[in-house]
């Protein structure tokens, strides 16, 4: 318990004193996972909508792949991505290993199926004819997408939170493709593992608490957006 207190004090001290390293690590976590979540949204939401609302050949296969992808173990993703990015690997020429770009890529692979899968179920709760009706009222395709997203705002934001939560907290893939290099690819999760391994438990707890606070703040914001304007009216029988 006292360890926890030490951790909290350490965390506050580090942040208030503007400990450069801690702040950099925190910002990097946010930027990498934020970018990964954003890209996962760009890829996952349209895919989820397409699977939910249209019938194309191979649709069921794609849907199963997405559902399988939701359960991918991050450490396995990390292993496969690092093998791809190794100097002697097929994508070695990109020279991306041990860079934030590699971490973003691995995190996208982890988050994108989550976002796509949850978007898919979100949109399957919508009437399949709704899209047609909106077009029939004169919506353009971008307008249609926007309206459907607003309709499915609740589960869609849940998808965003799940995607973000999945990557901000993961350590296996980040460790493998990032290398936990000080000042370059060290993020909150990998730093926590490092400090724990060194026996610096107060620092580890402090980093862990910062990570929790960060995740909480982001989710607070998203939950606010999600739950706004939810009026409950009695339904007529």
């Amino acid at each position: 318990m006292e360890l926890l207190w030490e951790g909290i004090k350490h965390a506050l001290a580090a942040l208030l004193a503007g400990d450069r390293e801690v702040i950099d690590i925190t910002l990097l976590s946010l930027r990498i996972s934020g970018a990964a979540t954003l890209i996962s949204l760009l890829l996952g939401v349209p895919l989820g909508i397409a699977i939910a609302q249209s019938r194309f050949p191979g649709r069921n296969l794609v849907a199963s792949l997405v559902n399988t992808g939701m359960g991918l173990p991050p450490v396995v993703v990390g292993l496969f991505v690092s093998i791809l990015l190794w100097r002697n690997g097929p994508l070695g020429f990109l020279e991306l290993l041990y860079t934030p770009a590699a971490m973003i890529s691995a995190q996208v692979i982890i988050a994108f199926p989550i976002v796509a899968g949850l978007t898919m179920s979100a949109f399957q709760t919508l009437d399949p004819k709704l899209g047609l009706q909106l077009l029939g009222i004169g919506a353009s395709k971008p307008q249609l997408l926007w309206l459907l997203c607003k309709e499915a705002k609740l589960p869609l934001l849940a998808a965003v939170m799940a995607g973000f939560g999945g990557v901000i907290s993961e350590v296996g893939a980040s460790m493998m493709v990032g290398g936990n290099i000080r000042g370059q690819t060290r993020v909150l999760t990998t730093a926590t593992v490092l400090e724990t391994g060194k026996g610096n438990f107060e620092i580890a707890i402090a980093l862990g608490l910062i990570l929790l606070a960060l995740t909480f703040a982001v989710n607070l914001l998203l939950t606010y957006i999600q739950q706004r304007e939810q009026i409950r009216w009695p339904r007529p029988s």
Partner: protein
Amino acid sequence: MAETILELKNIVVRHGETIALRVPSLGVAQGEVLAVIGPNGAGKSTLLRVMGLLERPAEGEVYFRGRAVADADTLALRRRMASVFQEPLLLAATVYDNATLGLRLRGFDRRAIERRVAPWLERLGITHLVKRPARSLSGGEAQRTSLARALALDPELLLLDEPFSALDPPTRDGLILDLEKILRDTGITTVFVTHDRDEAGMLGERIAVLIGGGLLQVGAAAEVFAQPVDESVAGFVGVETRLPGVVESVGEGLAQIALDGRAIEVVGDFQIGERVIVCLRPEDVTLGSPHGDGVKSSARNRLAARVAKINPWGFHYRVALDCGGARLVALVTRPSFVDLGLREGEEVMASFKATAVHVIRRK
């Protein structure tokens, strides 16, 4: 001569391997209300989607006011039409937001929107509901909102896909009457799909019959219901008696047709030996006691038959008769039913006028 707002030419729509719709030619004239009827799965909704530029046909052309529709025009032309479907399909927002959606999508400003939508809210009787969330509406109120949404756009073509099917009868009746009045007053060109003959008859000026993806008959309501062009249309529009026969003799605008041992007389020009189908609507078949009880009628055709089945039918009774192997269907009013004391298995006399008979030439 009214302008043709929309015209379909040589349209073929495929869903997978099957042909879902085939329309060689169909036009919608300005100001008319065209009802499209047919059984479920006939392709009516597909037809409406093609008209609304919501589905692209595999073959054929769609013309809007005489100009062929190109891909680049679709959005602009779609915005000159409005569709309403069977379910109201409203968004999770207030009635006002839903009703004004179409206008907002087109970029009208707040005041213009208010001006355009208010009269329609009034006319459809939902002004008092504007602030209510769509989720809390009853079926009828929701459908009125959907209609307001479409009508507020002042569309050049209104497309309604079974808009009343999901409503309970009293709500339905109320809404049909309101819509009928609106269409009459505004003269909006409307295409309206239904599987209900009565709705079609009530709202439609012209009726198109779609069966199995094919457009079988288009014409005025009276014509389509009384003179179906072939057996499947006949079956669908409620011509329940369809008896195959051969023309035996002709003369003076009349013809004798042999039906399996019996002869009946019809009006029309035929050739001897022509194979035909004799059609009768149940309302045109009168039943009487088999022994000629002195009630004179002008019906020249009398056939002896046995009552096979009696079914209550709304405020009538539907009586299926076995006429020596041929099947006849009559619709009898309650009082008549009681008077005749009909029972299954009884012998009766079925009579009908020569003029009531519609003859379909067999191909």
